[in-house]
């Protein structure tokens, strides 16, 4: 039997505005707010006029742009290779301890990339761990890694899980009968992967690779620490004394990010049939003599992305707590000093998560219950704000507060920071909320209606309790991202409002490595708990 939602009338129907008008008013206002930062970026550039054009075609732009693209493309490619290889190894071979690897492989997600970079540099610094470990056995400390290779190495190590997770989930969901048929038809393990598995997994890998690309394009901390000038560092450096340049560079950065995101969306083949799980357990590819190299590869990936940085940071933290001197002004630290930044991190994160969930809920209702072209346009605006680097969103809102009359009230306030966070990370809450709305059978709301429940009571008693798990998961993802976000926090935080991320950054800049290590360990610990609860535990590849 046909079942259609209430419609807003023939005219609205034609334009794709399905759903109640009040919901549309709310959604359009929210979408407009999400579009504000990028809109301001564009307006600023247009109002600068000819100057913008001269900047766009100058060396000042070309060099950082080339660097950004080089780094993003190489890291994305390397992450795709590493992530896909690990996914195949853990899901389809007889790799020893597969179950454990499935849990461990996504774990580098818990490390903010700038923390990993800082750890690497700290280990190699004079008086650092590398020196202390290597000197006694007669080896000199290795030379500093920095520049392109440093950034490439760190970013790949922390980004490959963005490919690993979707690829592993897709491989795990493939009916094993497909691969069995291929083997029976005479194809080997590698050929089966190439001709049967890969075509099915490709779109998942592609989506993950896009996330890596966007991550690298928007990364500020790693490239800054590694001394590799990209668009984002140039924007950051120039924002104070050459704002027009910063805005032009920012516009290019936003265009690069949005263009790549748009291209991926257009080319993606998301129409893969949802395949039924293939009953029997998958045939395992026997690695044989490849077992040792495969294990080593997994160890290197996880070691670089997780174990090494955490060990280095813990080493500094322990030294700091023990109060041992090592040639720095301040090496002893106390945990209590971290109280305020930790509290600020939690406050900013929790408020952002709460606001994001509330704000995206009307959008989720529109997109998942009513659909239509207009609703998917709203979704695109919110999703696009995630592709735009947080640095730019923060830059735009801060300058708006400074320059637009009447908004100076918000300049460097907590609401401004939270606004930037919500715009940047809102889509994470939106996706979960859409899932949540879809789980509420519309008939349940109708049943409540026939039992005399008005709109508010239906929301509170029926819809919200049923959506709660999905909304909490979405809020949790936003909280996690907010905690790890560095550049937006650096730019838009109120004066004196220190979070764990900014404290790590400042301590590192000032050379207080013990301080940095301790704050990092705290941040990583909290982030690890959240990542486990929200990302890894719920991931399909563990089923």
């Amino acid at each position, binding site marked *: 039997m*046909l079942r*259609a939602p209430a419609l807003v009338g023939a005219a609205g129907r034609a334009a794709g505005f399905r759903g109640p008008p009040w919901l549309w008013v709310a959604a359009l206002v929210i979408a407009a707010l999400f579009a504000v930062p990028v809109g301001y970026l564009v307006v600023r550039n247009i109002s600068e006029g000819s100057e913008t054009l001269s900047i766009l075609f100058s060396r000042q732009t070309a060099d950082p742009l080339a660097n950004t693209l080089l780094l993003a493309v190489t890291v994305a490619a390397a992450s795709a290779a590493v992530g896909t290889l690990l996914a195949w190894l853990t899901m389809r071979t007889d790799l020893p301890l597969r179950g454990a690897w499935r849990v461990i492989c996504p774990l580098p997600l818990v490390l903010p990339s700038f923390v990993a970079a800082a750890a690497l540099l700290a280990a190699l610094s004079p008086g650092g761990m590398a020196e202390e470990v290597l000197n006694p056995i007669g080896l000199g400390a290795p030379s500093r890694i920095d520049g392109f290779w440093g950034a490439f190495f760190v970013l790949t190590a922390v980004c490959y899980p963005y490919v690993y997770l979707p690829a592993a989930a897709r491989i795990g969901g493939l009916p094993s009968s497909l691969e069995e048929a291929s083997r029976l038809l005479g194809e080997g393990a590698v050929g089966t992967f190439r001709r049967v598995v890969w075509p099915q997994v490709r779109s998942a890998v592609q989506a993950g690779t896009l996330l890596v690309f966007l991550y690298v394009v928007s990364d500020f901390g790693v490239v800054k620490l590694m001394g590799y000038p990209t668009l984002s560092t140039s924007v950051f450096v120039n924002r104070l004394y050459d704002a027009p340049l910063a805005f032009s560079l920012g516009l290019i950065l936003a265009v690069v990010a949005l263009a790549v995101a748009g291209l991926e969306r257009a080319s993606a083949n998301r129409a893969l049939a949802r395949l039924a799980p293939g009953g029997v357990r998958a045939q395992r590819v026997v690695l044989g003599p490849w077992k040792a190299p495969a294990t080593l590869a997994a160890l290197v990936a996880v070691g670089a992305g997780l174990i090494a940085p955490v060990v280095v940071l813990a080493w500094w933290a322990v030294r700091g707590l023990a109060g041992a001197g090592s040639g720095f002004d301040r090496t002893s630290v106390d945990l209590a000093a971290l109280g305020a930044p930790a509290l600020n991190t939690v406050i900013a994160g929790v408020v952002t998560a709460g606001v994001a969930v509330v704000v995206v809920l009307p959008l989720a209702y529109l997109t998942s219950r009513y659909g239509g072209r207009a609703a998917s346009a709203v979704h695109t605006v919110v999703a696009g704000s995630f592709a735009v680097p947080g640095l730019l969103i923060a830059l735009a809102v801060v300058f708006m507060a400074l320059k637009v009359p009447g908004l100076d009230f918000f300049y460097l306030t907590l609401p401004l920071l939270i606004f930037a966070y919500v715009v940047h990370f809102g889509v994470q809450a939106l996706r979960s909320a859409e899932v949540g709305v879809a789980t509420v059978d519309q008939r349940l709301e109708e049943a409540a209606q026939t*039992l005399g429940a008005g709109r508010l009571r239906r929301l509170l008693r029926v819809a919200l309790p049923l959506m709660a798990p999905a909304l909490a998961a979405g809020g949790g993802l936003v909280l996690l991202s907010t905690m790890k976000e560095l550049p937006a926090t650096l730019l838009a935080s109120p004066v004196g409002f220190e979070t764990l991320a900014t404290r790590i950054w400042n301590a590192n800049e000032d050379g207080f490595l013990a301080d940095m290590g301790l704050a990092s360990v705290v941040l990583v610990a909290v982030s690890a708990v959240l990542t486990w609860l929200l990302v890894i535990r719920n991931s399909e590849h563990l089923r």
Partner: protein
Amino acid sequence: MAAGDLVTKNLSFAYGDVRAVEDASIAVPAGTVTALLGPSGCGKTTLLRLIAGLERPDAGAIEAGGETLSTPERVRPPEKRRIGMVFQEGALFPHLSVAENVAFGLPRGRERADVVEEALALVGLAGMGKRSPTSLSGGQRQRVALARALAPGPEVLLLDEPFANLDPALRVELRTEVASLLRTLGITSVFVTHDQEEAFVMGAQVIVMRDGRVLQSASPSDLYSRPANRWVASFVGEANVVPGKGGAQAAETVVGVVPLAKAAPATCEVLLRPEHLSMESGEAWEVEQLEFYGHDTLYVLRSEQGEKLMVRAGGAPRYGNGDRASVRYQGPPTVAFEA
């Protein structure tokens, strides 16, 4: 909503370009059960949703006890109608217990727990209040759904194929129970089904719908013996529709003269129910196929001119495949349709 007849007047509704209900006028007498019968996609569920106030009509009106509930301009919201509804598969709130589900539509107060227990006892689930809906069987879930809809004391009860997803034995048991419960309570009810048997068992009145239109409203026996057209005749039971020469009180057909309930045109089609035909020794028809059902036997007969006829006779088969017989009409006055 005041107690009284439930009436829809020339109701129309479309989903986009799909006309789901067209010019539907029905009347449900107060205190009785009406079955809305039709094949899937005929608009019966949509008509029910219009009555519930879950959809806004494009044209027409819905009235109850003289009060207007729905017009294209104004729809009294479902929560203000005092209409109870039992959904397909129950639509129980999965996060609430059985008792909390039943209490959902009740005002807060001291009597609430008593009303809940009473409603559960009414549907044979006394003492099950603490259970979770997910722990119940399909039949129990529908009982809870019924208790939930009845608890607030609605003036009209709507049931949307409530037994469709139960296994056959349970379906028969539950519908007998629900039918007698609704009759005892004397509550004005509208019941949607695609099952002719269910409609006849449950409904004091049966309304047949097809392609969004109401074809006929009548008591089950009238519907069966005097269907409005050929399609209704076949939909509500087995039917032979044979060409005939009509008259004021009878028609000439392949089985001889058949009495008519009302006059028919000279060229017409006459309805012959298989159980109203009887077989005697003769040569006109040959048994082509037979099915023995225990209480009776269905014969499919073929004439030399190729005409086909179904005959239902009580008891075990008395003829075999290939046997020949003649056929006579032995039923009450029947109806003829324009050819």
